[in-house]
């Protein structure tokens, strides 16, 4: 999108490891990406590919046993760049950023709210913490946000408890809570997976509209290729803790280059298109990120693997055209040819 603008967040070579009895689990192994203001980056992958751990590392809310390495450079309000990983996860500076400048929407709205407090109360908590100390002003801001996310009867809803909300409404309230401080980066971790299609569509449109209004950047994490196509400007496909392909949504969907991306695209039926007799399916299952063999993580399941090359070293991201990069040896040849 806006190339001239400085990225809000730059993730550089992020590693997350978990020590276990059996050895060290490495669910995230060198992930790098940038997000600019007003842009939506879709992080796509199957379960266990490390996408959620990546987002939690940015928020600094990973479990204690997880160890993060690398750099997460966040550009604050005043243009100063902070490495979020260097901050104490329980310290004051990160708490000032978390919730205010970076906020997050979770998959299960039912779990994200405490059943003991009213919805208004819980959204208000955020404003009171970060924006204003004045109770009246804070409530006004909260109500305005609730209206903005399409909660009808906001004044009445303000005093209701989570169990009085439907799933879709609760997800709206969650978005209101995430956006009430006008964050510069919104992390949406499978925000619509638990919702029905009609409500999912409403929520996605709401997010797009609010993004336009507030100019925030969105990191959109999902396994659903349909919602990504609808929401995202750029897409990064993750497999086994690494980004295997990245580019604009169009590049990824129309000209997937990495065999995994191609397999992924082939395994979903595009609704409304000509019926194929069979779907393309990737053989085997995602291996556990424990004691990994050298070479490409996708080697065992790949139908374009080259023995002697692919099983020797992990391929780097090779850039093809514009922003389109893929981590596959087949793309290296092309890059060289260029």
């Amino acid at each position: 999108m806006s190339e001239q603008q400085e990225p809000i967040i730059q993730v550089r070579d992020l590693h997350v490891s978990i020590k276990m009895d059996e050895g060290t689990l490495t669910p995230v192994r060198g992930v790098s990406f940038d997000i600019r203001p007003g842009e939506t980056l879709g992080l796509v992958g199957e379960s266990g590919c490390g996408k959620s751990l990546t987002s939690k590392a940015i928020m600094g809310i990973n479990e204690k046993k997880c160890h993060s390495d690398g750099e997460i450079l966040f550009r604050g309000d005043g243009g100063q760049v902070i490495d979020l990983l260097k901050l104490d996860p329980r310290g004051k500076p990160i708490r000032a950023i978390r919730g205010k400048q970076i906020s997050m929407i979770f998959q299960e709205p039912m779990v994200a709210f405490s059943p003991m407090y009213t919805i208004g109360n819980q959204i208000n908590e955020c404003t009171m913490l970060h924006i204003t100390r004045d109770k009246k002003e804070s409530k006004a801001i909260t109500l305005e946000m609730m209206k903005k996310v399409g909660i009808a009867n906001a004044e009445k809803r303000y005093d209701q408890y989570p169990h009085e909300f439907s799933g879709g409404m609760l997800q709206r309230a969650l978005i209101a809570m995430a956006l009430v401080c006008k964050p510069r980066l919104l992390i949406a971790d499978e925000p619509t997976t638990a919702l029905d299609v009609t409500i999912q569509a409403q929520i996605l449109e709401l997010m797009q509209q609010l993004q336009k209004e507030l100019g925030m950047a969105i990191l959109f994490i999902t396994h659903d290729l349909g919602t990504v196509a609808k929401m995202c400007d750029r897409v990064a496909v993750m497999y086994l803790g690494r980004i295997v392909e990245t580019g604009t949504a169009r590049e990824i969907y129309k000209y997937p280059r990495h065999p995994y991306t191609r397999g992924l695209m082939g395994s979903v039926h595009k609704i409304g298109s000509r019926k194929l007799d069979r779907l393309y399916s990737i053989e085997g299952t995602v291996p556990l990120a424990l004691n990994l063999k050298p070479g490409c993580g996708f080697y065992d399941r790949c139908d374009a693997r080259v023995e002697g090359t692919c099983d020797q070293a992990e391929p780097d991201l090779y850039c093809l055209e514009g922003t389109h990069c893929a981590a596959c040896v087949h793309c290296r040849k092309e890059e060289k040819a260029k």
Partner: protein
Amino acid sequence: MSGKETAAANESKKPSPGEKDVILRVSHISKRFTSKGVCVRAVTDVSFDVKKGETIGIVGESGCGKTTLGRCVVRAIEASEGDVLYTARDGRTYDFLRLNKADMKKVRKDIQMIFQDPYSSLDPRMTVIDIIAEPLRANYPKMPKAEVEKKVIEIAKKVGLNTTYLKRYPHAFSGGQRQRIGTARALILNPQVIVCDEAVSALDVSIQAQIINLLKDLQKELELTYIFISHDLSVVEHISDKVGVMYLGRLVEFGETEQLFSRPRHPYTEALLSAVPVADPDIRIERIPLQGEIPNPANPPSGCYFHERCRYCQEKCAREVPQLQEVDGRMVACHFAEELRLRGFDYDQDAIDKKKTAAEKE
């Protein structure tokens, strides 16, 4: 449209009732749950026919009663009203919901189920071989052990399980493999009809494709009939010959997949289709907004259950409950099904391609 589908479409134009190859006739099924004095109608008066070798997709949003319907059909729970007429291999037709003991023993095994959650549907305390063999042992207690084992290995091979791993416990398997085990268990009694309740929803995309392909292959090989219940419209579109759309416990539309997806006749189907995100960044469909939320099934609206949210609603809709009627080769429950011109997916792929190339040139 492939040749096979055209054939299926032609067949449906013949008068279907009483036809020989109808294997399952679901008629006027209702299910009510009563808890604490409140009666909730989970399924209301649902009827449709299933032909041998077909796949019927049932779609709808959560709480629409599709799972309850599936469970009523396999008799996992008892329906409050209605019949399921099942034509067995011997040509006789049984009322599956009211079988006597002898028939029960004979016919029960013909209709089986594949479950949604590959984790909770396998007993973690049994080895895979025992799980798959359990239905055999229950139905043929006198079958010698060697034969049971032979049959299990045969079926395990069929669903693509590595037979050397059969002595393992389920915790050794991934979600996709577990779903294969569940499929093997459903298949071992050689059933005719299988109800798949969200059978691939809990799986990752690439694994989903594996299981869908497996189900399709098995269908061809064993002449299976599927009732495929799912909230995922693109999966249903891919696998089903016919699709039924449910809303608040009622079947609102039932017809050939492509027909229904390209030219829906019920406003709810139209809205549902417009909300599906398509895995193609070039396709931007304008969503048809739905007002309000799904009403409480304990207290459904008067007349047409959908009228409060329908943009074509007229005064008649609030008064009268529309009955399923045949319109344009399919069943629709809408008073204005004949008049409305609703929008679906544009199946003309060539036109789409042309549009795209034109856009690219620009």
